[in-house]
């Protein structure tokens, strides 16, 4: 197990190295560049040249790349020029991370809590009305652009009905104490329960919109997987043992059917970030996706650098964790 993890980590390092090289090449071939985004329409050629020099952009490319790599390894990604001017880009990442993690967790929980039971019962009544209905629903879920779904949810539930707040993470006039920057948790820890509740209300709509992506995938995998497992001999064996329906469902069907689902959850990280860029933009939810969208549109290269690096790193790490989780629930891998 340890060797397995070490080998995975080494591969992760290699992937990250390639990411850094591509990232550098990308940054240097962009039109405009950081000078532009720093100075804006009031820039003069002179001030532009001066800034260029200060940022070390007049040195040879290889030297720049060396500095780039050196800075990256030491976590020096530079300062944000637009998203939160002057703040360390890595600091912005860590500040925004809890928001997106909180949102993603809620979204994943919503997706799991709906997709797995629905997938199970759809498979159980294969070909029935529930099955057909939920398959169609999941396909429509794939076909509706996430940001449009977010828009409609917001328009209906926040603007027209006014049940939930339309944007942000917490009401601005709520004086909440920050501990971990996971707002729901913070509220519980400091016993400011109104802050927790307020944070949850802000989470619901974006989380539902975000959940639509993993929901469709998890539902379909669960359904296919349960369908396959239901035909397995060991389920028949379990039936022949006269076990209760509950035990058969949990221990024999779902436990096996969950194996592919677990790996899918790992794969959803990329999809979630894609979704987060869109939903967070619609709901002005101050997370990584919002920062990413802003950094792209305003060309905040330091922030982009951090976020892209971290997206790749996060993907690699989460999938490493998923593999470990997989090993835990699948003894065939664990005991090899």
């Amino acid at each position, binding site marked *: 197990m340890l060797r397995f993890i070490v080998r995975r980590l080494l591969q992760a390092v290699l992937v990250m190295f390639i990411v850094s090289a591509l990232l550098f090449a990308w940054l240097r071939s962009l039109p405009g560049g950081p000078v532009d985004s720093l100075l804006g329409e009031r*820039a003069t050629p002179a001030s532009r040249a001066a800034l260029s020099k200060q940022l070390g952009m007049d040195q040879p490319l290889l030297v720049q790349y060396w500095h780039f790599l050196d800075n990256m390894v030491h976590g020096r990604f530079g300062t944000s020029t637009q998203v939160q*001017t002057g703040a360390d880009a890595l600091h912005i990442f860590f500040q925004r991370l809890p928001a997106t993690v909180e949102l993603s967790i809620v979204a994943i929980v919503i997706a799991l809590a709906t997709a797995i039971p629905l997938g199970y019962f759809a498979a159980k009544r294969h070909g029935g009305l529930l099955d057909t209905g939920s398959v169609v629903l999941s396909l429509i879920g794939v076909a509706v652009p996430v940001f449009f779904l977010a828009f409609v949810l917001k328009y209906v539930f926040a603007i027209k009905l006014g049940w939930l707040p339309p944007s*942000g993470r917490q009401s601005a006039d709520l004086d909440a104490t920050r501990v971990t920057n996971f707002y729901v948790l913070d509220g519980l820890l400091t016993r400011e329960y109104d802050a927790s509740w307020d944070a949850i209300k802000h989470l619901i709509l974006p989380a539902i919109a975000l959940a639509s992506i993993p929901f469709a995938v998890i539902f379909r995998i669960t359904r296919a997987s349960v369908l396959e497992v239901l035909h397995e001999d060991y389920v028949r064996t379990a039936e022949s043992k006269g076990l209760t329906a509950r035990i058969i469902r949990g221990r024999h069907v779902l436990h096996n059917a969950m194996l592919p689902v677990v790996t899918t959850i790992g794969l959803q990280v990329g999809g979630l970030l894609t979704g987060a860029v869109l939903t967070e933009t*619609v709901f002005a939810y101050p997370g990584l996706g919002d920062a990413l969208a802003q950094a792209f549109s305003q*060309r905040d290269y330091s922030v982009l650098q951090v976020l892209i690096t971290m997206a790749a790193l996060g993907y690699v790490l989460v999938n490493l964790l998923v593999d470990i989780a997989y090993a835990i629930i699948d003894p065939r891998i664990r005991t090899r």
Partner: protein
Amino acid sequence: MPAIKTTATVALLAASALALSSCASSKRNDDKAAGTDAASAAKGNTNATLNFGAAGAPATFDPFYASDGETFRISRQIFQGLVGFKPGTADVAPALATKWEPSPDGKTWTFTLKTGVKFTDGTPFNADAVCKNFKRMDSQNAAGQTASEYWLTNMGGYNGAKGELYQGCTAKGDSTVVIKISRPTSKFPALLGLPAFSMQSPTAMDKYDANGIKAQGQGFVYPAYANAHPVGTGPMKFEKYDQTNKTVSLVRNDDYAGDEKPTVKRIVFSIIPDETARKQALASGQIDGYDLPNPVDWPSLKKDDNLEIRPAFNILYLGLNAKVDPNLKDLRVRQALYYAINRDQLVRSLLPSGANVASQFIPSTVAGYNKSLQPYTYDPAKAKSLLAAAGKSNLKITLWYPTEVSRPYMPAPDKIFNAIKSDWAAVGVQVTPKPMPWAGGYVTGTQNGNAAAYLMGWTGDYNTPDNFLGSFFADPKGQMSVGAYDWGSKLADALSADDSIVDEGKRASAYEDLNKQIMEQYLPGLPISSSPPAIVFSKKVTGVVASPLTDEHLWTAKVDK
């Protein structure tokens, strides 16, 4: 076995939560207790909070290093300059200086300061503090010189460099300050009203290393002062910047010495980058107001909310560069392009109500505006004949326009581009579109003079024609490469001569003549329109006067909640 694992995990989580909660306790302010709220509300002195939707995060809290509107909006609530502007206008008015007097040559200015004013950290505001502020601005390190955009463009240099406008500050007693400048200019003292040149507490600046700015990576690292400890004399004090929730809160300065006392307890800026999201946040009552609503939303905002329209203090123009495209060197071609644009329709369909067709490169509220100039009319026939006369009937031109941006003078650049493109096509001018992201090369490209034709605009910093015309034409190698024309240097000289006229009346008439000359003889670019930007508040908020300079006094808001 899985059951055991689950139990263990839950136990572990519970334990860590417990451990965390032991070191986490509520740090709430209790000054918001309901009792005080009710009591003071009854007296009419409201303790309300104004929630304002900002389009972006403030770059810094030290306005000296800033050049963006979101930063300045916050600075304007915290700081005051020596001079200010009359609410709702671009006219200079007393602020921290009660009066000022220039020497006859216009190079020495004596300011009389308001007395009894204190910075919010208790440091007294006096002549000494003013001069410390100016010395600080003038003696910036390399990074500071790049960051302090406004000082560079307005003062022209640092540390007594050649051509620098600022020449020194002398304290005479406690409440008199003498500032020397190198040449008379129309923008003095109006430029002292810019938030960038606000008076900041020398004590706080020393304590939090206000000048310790560094360039690093691809941007600047600001010192502690600029990040979290700005101290001014204004009506509001900086309270906190909750970066994870993207809110900035300011709290009332109860010792504010100005005339307009703050009527809100707090101003909270919620940063909502998406335009539609801001509108919806207002509709749902989450925020009380936001700036620069999309003109498309004006009709509905007028109905449901309190839409304050500012006087138009900007100009949208179509820049031309004869150096890039020699076809443009012929005045008839430039005129033809101008006549061919149906600006009436463009303004009506794509710009907010109240926008008008421009007749010159400055908006009508600026002194020096030539009222007698008539806008070029829409006349495709004339355009065609002019082109024919110039032998350019099959003109091809590359027109640049920005993407991923919306400016007050140009809410929808792509639509404006399309309108111009089809107008030009109607007179036989073939347009090659060149869209480019605003921050992804557009600004550099156009400002470096690489674009043959491009859409650009300008919002005035203060009320002088030089602020507009100087930015466009003073540099012969600048965006429109006026140096490429034989009249280019003459125009530059005229600009600098007119700017140095001390007498306001004479100066204004000189500029009126120059404007006429530019429009009739030179026509280096095509001014399109001026649009009034708006700021919107909910029906519950009154008392904020819209300013052409976006100098809104949010602290005067009356929030009826």
